[in-house]
Every structure is written in structure tokens, then in C-alpha cells.
């Protein structure tokens, strides 16, 4: 059309948004990984996250335990029911997430691409409300 092309980003300088990069993968596949493979994946994530942290952009991250450890609370007919197992039976499971401060969706997608391992899927989703809480997130088991 010969017009001014649209800008790729309308973000003004200094604008920022927190993105959650949410990791889905088949738990059956991940559980079948050898320790070496699992360590290699974790090392890869640490390497990518280390670079993001060095820019001062890394928020909380978490890897969740297997869905077999999950318990689900659900509204029932008369009262709340507490069920063993995850929220829903799905092909892929939510395995963990990373919170990253990004200047653009483009940047968030770039990090997600770097974090992807094998057939794992990364969902990039902006955070609406966040609260860092009071916990030291460092060690999960205490």
C-alpha cells in the first residue's frame, strides 16, 4: 500500500511488562528421562536464566513436583470436595514457570525459544497482578 509500515512495538521507552513463561510437557516423557538428561535440561535452563538474571530481569521461577503429588480442591454439589490428582487429565502437564521482566512480547518470545527443550511447549503469558510475597524462593524443601 506504500504506507508507513506499522511499528513492531508500540511500547514507549522504559515500558516493561512481566511475562510468565509457562512450561508444558508430557510428564510421562519427562519422568522417563535419565538423571543425566534431566541434569542437562536443568543446566540448560540455568544457563539461559543466568543470562536473564544478569540483566536484572529474572523474577521467581519454579519447577513443580509430579502431578501424582497433586491434590485438587473442587466445588461440589453441597460442599467442597478434595480429590487426589491434578486439575485435569491432559496430554501435557503444567511442569513449571519462569517470571521475566520484558520490554516487549518479542523479547519474551525470544527467551521462550531459548528455554524450549525437546517437545516441551512454552506458553508466553503477561502477568496481570504480581506480588513477590515474603518467602525466600531459593530452596523449596525446608
Amino acid at each position, binding site marked *: 500500500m506504500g504506507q508507513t509500515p*506499522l511499528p513492531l512495538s*508500540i511500547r*514507549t521507552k522504559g515500558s516493561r*511488562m512481566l511475562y510468565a513463561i509457562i512450561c508444558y510437557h508430557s510428564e510421562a516423557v519427562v519422568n522417563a528421562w535419565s538423571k543425566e538428561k534431566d541434569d542437562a535440561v536443568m543446566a540448560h535452563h540455568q544457563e539461559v536464566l543466568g543470562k536473564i538474571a544478569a540483566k536484572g530481569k529474572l523474577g521467581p521461577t519454579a519447577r513443580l513436583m509430579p502431578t501424582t503429588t497433586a491434590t485438587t480442591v473442587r*466445588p*461440589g*454439589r*453441597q460442599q467442597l470436595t478434595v480429590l487426589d490428582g491434578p486439575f485435569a487429565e491432559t496430554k501435557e502437564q503444567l511442569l513449571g514457570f519462569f517470571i521475566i521482566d520484558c520490554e516487549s*512480547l518479542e523479547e519474551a518470545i525470544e527467551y521462550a525459544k531459548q528455554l524450549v527443550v525437546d517437545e516441551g511447549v512454552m506458553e508466553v503469558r*503477561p502477568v496481570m497482578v504480581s506480588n513477590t510475597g515474603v518467602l525466600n524462593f531459593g530452596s523449596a524443601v525446608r
Partner: protein
Amino acid sequence: MTNTQDLTWIDAALTSARPQAVGALLRYFRDLDTAEEAFQEACLRALQKWPVNGPPRDPAAWLIMVGRNFALDEARRKNKQQELPDDDVISNLDDAEAPLAERLDNSQYRDDVLRLLFICCHPELPNTQQIALALRIVSGLTVKEIARAFLVSEAAMEQRITRAKRVVSNADVPFEAPGAPERAERLATVASMIYLVFNEGYSASGGDVHVRVPLCEEAIRLSKLLLRLFPAEGEIMGLTALLLLQHARAPARLDANNNIVLLEEQNRSLWDQNMIGEGLALVDKALRQRRVGPYQVQAAIAALHAQAKRPEDTDWKQIDQLYAVLESLTASPVVTLNRAVAVSKVEGPEAALAMIEPLAARLGGYFHFFGVRGGLLMQLGRADEAREAFDRAIALANTPAEAAHIRMHLDRLQKDGATAPRHRPTSVG
């Protein structure tokens, strides 16, 4: 938690299931009245059953099934060709619900909802009737609520909707699943209808109330519904973002006396940051597709305004460029008028005035034209001409708030006399 005493959860479930359920029933019976009646009946039964049995897994599927069975029974009863079925068969639906729900064709849902919205956009219906019909049929607002939103009597609105329904039911509505080109065409038509609903709320075309929040909220709900059904449509992302970014300013757009507060004079801390965040995220997503469209461009403009912490932080240069893109897409004098406001910030009021002069013939009956023109003349210190333009604007004002806003300019002119040019904001918030 599900509380058996508190039935508001049922209301919410019925409201959110409505477009899908009525849309499917319409496909099934190909008659709007039958579809609505069937849905009403299904809702009544939901009110009896759900408090006892708890919510069904898929409320929309439940309502479609029950509504469909009711309407089929009604048809049989009227035809008297078949014996009435045992009432137990009808009321025993709960046990059969799961397998029946699975048999419903999920893939047709999105076209059902789209069709339901599309039939409200009949070209013979004036805009206000399209809006009223959509609010009645798709959103399920009562005639009383719609009448209140339009500030007319309930009887008048009832009549208007009945007339609109007659037009729609005599129209040829294609019930086959649409092909890609038809679907795109329907989406565009429906998007502009949703935008109309929003605009009617954002800047009322008449009456005493300048902003009607419920209409804005309903438009946002419909737009989000459409986006859930068509999650990869850039223009629907753009539309949703535009509505969110505009509506985010609602708390700051009127002062305590219901006077219009200009964008540049608004208390920006009142803007809804969650809505702005969601709007920005959607603009980001839409722009990535690199398929430019008018809603995306307008949303991008709104996004730039929304990010400016103070008026002087506004990126007018990029806004001017975006308006240029919008002009090439839609070529409307109103777009040029809006662009002129950006131009006045970048190049000064003289350039902006030169830009809008040629629009006078086409915008001679448009309130905002004279508002902007008066503002530019005032900045140039041409007080007499400014006064003349403002007088025309007052005569064309749609609401008391618009008139009062212009009167405020006139008062300033009065006070300033013909003193040196002053920079006054011209854009309307």
C-alpha cells in the same frame, strides 16, 4: 464454593452460556423466536435443577439439550402427530446429560455465536436497532435494561426490538457453516457492531448522560467472547485492545459534576492499569502478525496515550504516523480531523488548521470538527473566529456535557480577551 442458597452463580452461568446456547438452538430450529423460547425454558429448568444437583459439567451443552427437547416437544404438541412423551423422560435428563453433551458438535459453536451476532447486523436496521437487538438476543439484557441504557420508555424499546426482530426473521440467514471468506466478512460486520455498542456507551448520541458504562462493559464482554472463539484474528485482538484501552480511562473522563475532562487534564492515576495492561498485551500480539487493520492502528494510538505518564510524555510523532496509516486504510474525514490534533502537537496549530480546512464541507454538521477548529484558532490567538467555531459546536453538541465543555472554552476566551496565543488542549478525552 457452590452455595445452594445463593443463586447468583446460576445467573452468571446462564449469562455466559447464553450466546452459545441460543446460537446452537437457532441453528437447530432456524427460527429466532423458537430458539429464544427454548432457551428461556431451559433456564427455568436450570433454576429448578442446578441448586439441587449442582452445576452440570458443561452448562451450555445442558441448556442446548434441554432447550432442544422442549422445543421439539412443543412442535410435536402443536402438530398433534405424536403422543406426548412421559414427563419423566424430559425431567430425567441429568442421567443422560454426559453422553448427550458429547454428541453435540463442538466445532460448530463458534460459527453459531458468530451467526447470532451477525443476524443483528442486518443492513436494513439503523445502528441503534442493531445495538438494541444484539443486547437483547446475544447479551440477554432485559428490555427494561436496554430502555434505560437508551433513555427511552420500556414500551418504545419493546416496539423497537419487536420491529427489528421482524426484519431479521424475514431475512435470509445462511445456516450452513460459512466458508473462510464469508466468515471473515461476518467477523468484520460483527466487529463494527460491537464497536457501535461501545461507542454508544463511550459517548452517548443523546440524552443527559454522557457515558453509559454498562454499554461499554457489554461491548468489551462481546469482544472478548469473539476473541476466545477466534483467538488468532488480529483485528479482533485490535478491537478488544481498543475497547479496553479506551474504557480504562472511564473513571477520569468526567468530573464530579459530570463535566468532560480532557485527556490532557485527566487524573491519570485514575486510569485502570489492569485494563491498560491487558490492552497493551493484545496490541503487542496483534502487531506481531504484521497484518495491519484499522482496529489495530486505533488500538496502537490508544496504547501510546495510555503509556504516557504525563500529557507531555505523549509520543505525538508516532501517533501522527499511525493516523497517517489509518487515513490510508479508511480515508475518513473524522480520521483526518483526529490526525490534525496530533499534527498540532508536532508541527503547531497552523499546520493542523490548514489540514482541517478542506474538511469543512463534509464535517459541517459534526460537533468535534468545530470543537477542534475552535481550539486551534484559540491557540493562534484568532479569538473571534474561535468564538464563532465554538458557537457552532454548542449548537451541534450531542449531550449537555459536550455543550458545557465548549462553554468552558468560551469562558476562557472571554477572560483572556484577545491576549497572546495560549496553548490549550483541543482533543476530547
